[in-house]
């Protein structure tokens, strides 16, 4: 744990020379913090989920544009173009970046899950604090043979810690690892 921490510190402390890695390169963050990346196929899951969310919105924006702009003599087509450009960007470009920001490490009696870049959260849950574990699989995840692991703690904050993008056999193996450590300390 101590080696990756020092690397991370060096990278962002202002008074030390910057580490040679490009902080914006995919998987640079995870490597620097000693985390394992999630399965790259998860980016397809994110992409499909984003598409299912954004395409209806873009269609709605187009229809609104078509209905409203001619009446008020506005610039017809501007909103439609912007909406579809944004949707295209979010569907094609962003999922791979977002997925590369997810990282996890299991071992030393604890599960570590990190996510995000602009707002990065790095969560550690000791196995002994886990109340129960779910392994879930949505229809899109099933297409790619992926599952997500959900760890429940009794804390009000972080009562659920979700780790998506795991190959199904790996998720099951992680569940077994954690289950062996769970103790019921409810007396």
């Amino acid at each position, binding site marked *: 744990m101590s080696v990756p921490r020092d690397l991370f*510190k060096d990278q962002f402390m202002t008074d030390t020379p910057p580490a040679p890695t490009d902080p914006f390169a995919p998987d640079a963050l995870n490597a620097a913090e000693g985390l394992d990346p999630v399965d790259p196929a998860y980016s397809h899951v994110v992409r499909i989920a984003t598409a299912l969310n954004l395409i209806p919105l873009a269609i709605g924006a187009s229809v609104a544009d078509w209905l409203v702009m001619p009446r008020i003599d506005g610039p017809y087509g501007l909103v439609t173009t912007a909406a579809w450009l944004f949707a295209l960007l979010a569907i094609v470009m962003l999922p791979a970046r977002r997925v590369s920001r997810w990282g996890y490490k299991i071992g030393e009696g604890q599960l570590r899950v990190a996510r995000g870049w602009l707002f990065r959260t790095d969560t550690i849950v000791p196995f002994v604090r886990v109340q129960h574990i779910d392994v879930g699989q949505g229809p899109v995840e099933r297409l790619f043979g992926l599952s997500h692991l959900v760890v429940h703690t009794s804390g009000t904050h972080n009562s659920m810690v979700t780790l998506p993008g795991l190959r199904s056999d790996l998720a099951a193996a992680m569940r077994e690892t954690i289950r062996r450590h769970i103790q019921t300390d409810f007396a």
Partner: protein
Amino acid sequence: MSEAVAVSPDLGGAQWQRLHPATLALALVKLGPRSLQFLPAVAALGFTGNWVWIVPAILAYLLIALAAACLQWMRFRFIVGDDEVVIESGVLSRQHRTIPFDRIQDVSIEQGLVSRALGIAKVGFETGAGGKENDAHLDAIGLDAAQALRTTIRAHRSAPVAAASVAAEAPAPAPVAEDRLLFAMGPRRLLVAGLFNFSLAALAVVGAGMQFFDDLLPFDFNVFDPRDWIDVAADYGLDQWVLAHRWIAGLGAAISLLFIGFASGIATMVFANWGFRLTREPRALRRTRGLTTRTDVAVPVKRVQAAIVVTGWLRKRFGWHELRLQSLASDGEKEKDHQVVPFGRLGEIDPVLGEVAIRRPDDAQAWQHSHRIVALGPIIGATAATIGGGIALYLGNDVGWLGIVAAPLVALIALWAARYHRWADVGDLVAIRRGWWKPKMTLLPHASVQSVDLKTDFILRPFGLATLVFGVPGGSSLASHEIPAIPLGVAQDLRSRILAAGLRQ
């Protein structure tokens, strides 16, 4: 009631019991507010000229409601077995619920005004399952039956675990014969507490009500509109006097405001905390309080997750503080944390903290500070207010001055308050302090921490800072415990130390 008492001690021959018959009377009382729904029907009858039908209609309504309450009462039964409570309820859809004593974390007893007159009480079972709908209750049974039931469940819970917990529960050896009084509030203390509880909230409620009912009131007069007062004064030739003595008039207004503020503060304090008693039972802290609605709540010592000492900038000068304990169960519907010392000296709070094995850092404690960047949010807000004010002035609206004057003040206060974000790692607990206007100190034992978040974002990262957020059972989901903006390396060290403490357990 007599049958309930007769059955409770004899658990071997457990048999089905019903709620106290007086519950039906309570149901009738509860009908009062609900019969408002009936008003439109009465009005309709009146408008159509069918006056003769009004009384029979009301009677029929009451009869149906009473019959429904009777039916519910008849279909509700419970049984207290050797190690579980079984509750059957429901008229059309039946519900059968089994609650093992092992899963009952605490039994609460609550009495409203009518319940006290009838000698009955509502019994709630805290099962620790999230959400209100999961908590079962008996509404209502005789008070002595309720207390007997609680004793039964507590006795069961302490019996098998006591042997194991003696070693762990160092501060209080298990066999404590007498319940010790830890803290009580007399009328004098309540009065002082009420004075510090100064609040104009009641005034705001009345004011909002006046605004709301303005159109409905038969007279055209708003207490909070000075012009109305001037009109009244003019009617009596007082306007000349008021204009001549406006200082006296202003003083009178200020004094009446102060009076309302103090009176409502004292009233809320007295109603909530009359006869406050905090006692130490073998396994729990027990609190009874309330003037009209008396509550009797026990906080099991082993379930206490964190202690929170709150005060105000003024009451701190006089040495008054409030102690709350964060437990797995929540304290009623509004309050999440259990208020165990509403208003007391630190000297009175420390022994209570001792009972839950938490030690308050002394005055010599060295504190570490959060980075001043925590004031960034309010400062951005203040900047926005300044810009908004400037635009308003540019457009010729004098209100803009308000933004321009208030913004630097807000920014200054935020910067000043940022100095009060402090923390210290004291052996087996973390102490977190924040706030200048309402100073708050959270004492969080390492062993209570279930998970730790280390957060950075695009603002904190260039400064090499991180925020630690702790997952702790109980409390409000809105106010999580966190140490904002501390150096990344320090945060990582603290995180490892706290998690290591959890693993040792």
